[in-house]
């Protein structure tokens, strides 16, 4: 059990580092491709700032 989990952990580390290095070297503006990339809510919600401002204004009016 120890050997398997240790080996898997090391392999995941190696994969994460190589994919991360590849993502680091991509041209600016292009999306990340790594399996371990994290989600950016604003990337799919470009109006988030506007929505928030509207909510604040509405609450102040109330």
């Amino acid at each position: 059990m120890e050997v398997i989990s240790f080996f898997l952990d090391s392999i995941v580390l190696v994969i994460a580092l190589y994919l991360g290095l590849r993502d680091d070297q991509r041209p600016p503006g292009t999306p990340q491709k790594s399996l371990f990339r994290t989600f950016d809510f604003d990337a799919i919600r470009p109006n988030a700032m506007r929505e928030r401002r509207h909510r604040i204004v509405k609450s102040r009016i109330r």
Partner: protein
Amino acid sequence: MRDLAFAFVWIALLPLLLISAHAGTLVWVWTALLSPNELLYGFMANVPLNKIVAVLTIFLVFFGREKKDPYFDVTLFLLILLGVVSTVSWFDGIVSNPTATDLYEKLLKEIVLVFVIAAVTTTRARIDRLVLVVVLAIGFLAVKEGTIYLLTAGGHHITGTYALGDNNGLAMALLMIIPLISYLARHSVARIVKIGMWSVMGLSLVTVIATFSRGGFIGMIVLAAFTLKNSRRRFRALLLVLLAGLFLYVLAPNSWFSRMDTIQSANNDNSFMGRVIAWKMSLLIAMDNPLFGGGMHAVQNQLVWDMYKKDLYRVDFVNTPPPDESTHAAHSIYFEVLGDLGFVGLTLFLAILGVALWNCQQLYRVSRGHPSLAWVGQLARMLQISLVVYLTTGAALSAAYLELLYVLIALLSRCRRTVQLALAAEAVNGETAQQFGSTPLLDGSRN
């Protein structure tokens, strides 16, 4: 066999270590938290992996072509002061032995690591990768120990690791990474990574139970309380906490409940009273060496112990039985630093923790007005929970020089710097950013 397998892993990592200071930093963190040498028994067991990676990384920080962003802030300034105090204490302390030197070197190495993390973790993607590596290093122990505990139906006895300490130290470290696992589980894009993270979180809770640590139990309560407090979706968080409670009730054996019951009778508990005596000893050492303390782990030195055990009456804030003949560890991060580095060292240590908590609050506050920084707000909240768990659980543990703490402190300092840069970029391109509803820092922070 495992040495050979790990040697291949090492060969695969080597090209990265030779070109990227960021990759080197991540492997440095991984080897520091996991201590892979402990898991090897053959020709790889004596290879100083951590030192090799540290030297290569520092070389690349100075001479590599990779983009870096060295800066200086309050956290880094306080850490330098802590390094100076520990150096004076090491030279001038009442204890001078190989153990003290090892601990002193460990602390200096951690301070250097903080500077390296701060300089090379320049983007959000890199920050997230660092969080991932922390989870990989300590989560490995959760997967291993938790699975064995479940497979043996509770027959597995957990002793801890060299890097994290005994069973109590392991429980604390696991509780500290649970908020980070939660951050990754919520933010990862790939479903397989999300499932993996939730599984590691479940196994972390199993392992904390399996340690039979009373400090771990208190840490779990703190973790649950702060998860509820910090959650925006309180009802969902409450359901999660109740589910975890049910899980605990079903999974934990009777012997676990009996062990936890002893928290109520701490005054009659030999183990607890032994800790109070060690706290008193540390306080006495600090009273006699108020500026820079008695040196690293002076309280664990037999000569020092014998010298001070007759003076316990000087600190009679709690009645304790006569001290043992053999020494005890300080068993508290606060008394550990107090005895080792004196009141100056303790003040600096608390100031560093205070600034880290302040950073959490500031990051969360700033992120609320900037949707493109929502990620850092959530990460700061999670790091805040990790720090509170550390401050609570660490009150009864010798873990002041835990690598994980310094990695979290570095993360917070770096997040603050990243946000400052992002806001500066936003201020320059503010008008354009508002027109499009998003901000240029979005791309900048993810590159």
